[in-house]
């Protein structure tokens, strides 16, 4: 019964899922030309964390792989580099997503900071970014900005998905 319930939920919010990822990609594309771009988290990954952490009937690994490739194209990095990072992080999340789901958005934000710190560290290792003093601060502050965005995004998405389920 539980499985059928979770499967049903995921199928119900399919269009929200697609629309949210498209919106996240547009946001990623928008912030890339902003001077303070290093402080913004990859919104596509943040949104995928929401879906992977709240809807347990799918693994979201393939979505992570595709989003990673799109992110590589968007940021002009070697194809597959972001895909590896995205797939690894979503896999890590999937190991404890039952716990993750039971936390409040504030508690989840602490985990998000950790995940995005790993993301930023691997970015630093893989791509050797050129950072001025200001950009270095932005770059290492990004996990915290991801947590702030999470606190906004997660309750908002919770409300949307709840409405869909109730209808």
């Amino acid at each position, binding site marked *: 019964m539980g499985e059928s319930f979770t499967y049903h939920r995921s199928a119900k919010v399919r269009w929200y899922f697609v629309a949210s990822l498209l919106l996240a990609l547009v946001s990623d*594309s928008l912030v890339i030309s902003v001077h303070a*771009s290093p402080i913004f988290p990859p919104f596509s990954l943040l949104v995928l964390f929401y879906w992977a952490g709240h809807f347990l009937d799918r693994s979201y690994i393939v979505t992570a792989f595709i989003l990673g490739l799109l992110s590589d194209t968007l940021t002009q990095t070697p194809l*597959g580099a972001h895909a590896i990072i995205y797939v690894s992080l979503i896999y890590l999340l999937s190991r404890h997503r039952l716990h993750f789901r039971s936390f409040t958005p504030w508690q989840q934000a602490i985990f998000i900071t950790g995940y995005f710190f790993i993301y930023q560290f691997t970015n630093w290792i893989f791509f050797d970014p050129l950072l001025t003093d200001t950009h270095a601060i932005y770059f290492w502050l990004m996990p915290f900005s991801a947590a702030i965005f999470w606190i906004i995004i997660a309750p908002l998405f919770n409300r949307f998905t709840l409405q869909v389920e109730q209808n």
Partner: protein
Amino acid sequence: MAFILAIVLLAADRYGEMVSELRGFLLAGLTPIEQVASIPKTFFKEFDRDIVDYDELKRQNQILKTEVLLLKAKQQQLINLKQEVARLESLLGTTGKIADHTVQIATVTQFSQNPISQFMTLNKGSKDGVSTQDTVIDANGVVGQIINVAPYSARVMLITDPDHHLPVRIQRTSQRGILKGSGYDSSELNFIPSNSNIKVGDIIETSGLGGVFPSGYPVATVTEVEKTGSAPYLKIFTQPISELNKAHKVLILKPEAISPQTLKTDLDYDLNSSLNQTETGD
């Protein structure tokens, strides 16, 4: 499985350039997303342009008219110089050909200020005849080169990208070197011997070596020259001449395809020149 596939793709892209078609496909998929993302910026620009008052427009019009006159005068000079160069080159017995390029205007739809890579996206793609390695310039100088092409968009690697290397020469002395991007609107000029005559303010232009960039386009200005102890080369910092951050319209230069007939005429011309030289020498 996805992890392994990602590693395979990474290796193929890093060491073999085998996935350029896949990247083109992904870029084509991202084009509408990038266009949607550019709407706020375009809207702001349009709004900013619309609120310019009548006096400002009159003033801009006057400035443009003056610029047109000056450019026409310069064009006349250039035509004369081109003829003079052709005459001197024919006297020297060289081919006397200046590489001609077709020019295409494109609009910048996306610009990256990302610390990982410096690029811009243009609204022209393979359907418009754009191909990789085409040179991109603006009104002031070289912007970069096309690295990825999708049907309706293309990516330009800027000359400030850390992976970008450009064969150049110093305009004043013709000393050759390699210009390497160092991110954030700056670049470095490498391989200039420490005993070279170079000073702050010198213009650096494309040398044409390597065959990718046409010769003689301004690229950067020298901003700082450092001589470190007994190092064989100078450390030279430069700033791009083109307005990388502000450019909205750019030109894509494409080498003009040489028809077999033109090639034959050129070869005949070279052969005749060589024969004449040999006869004169005898």
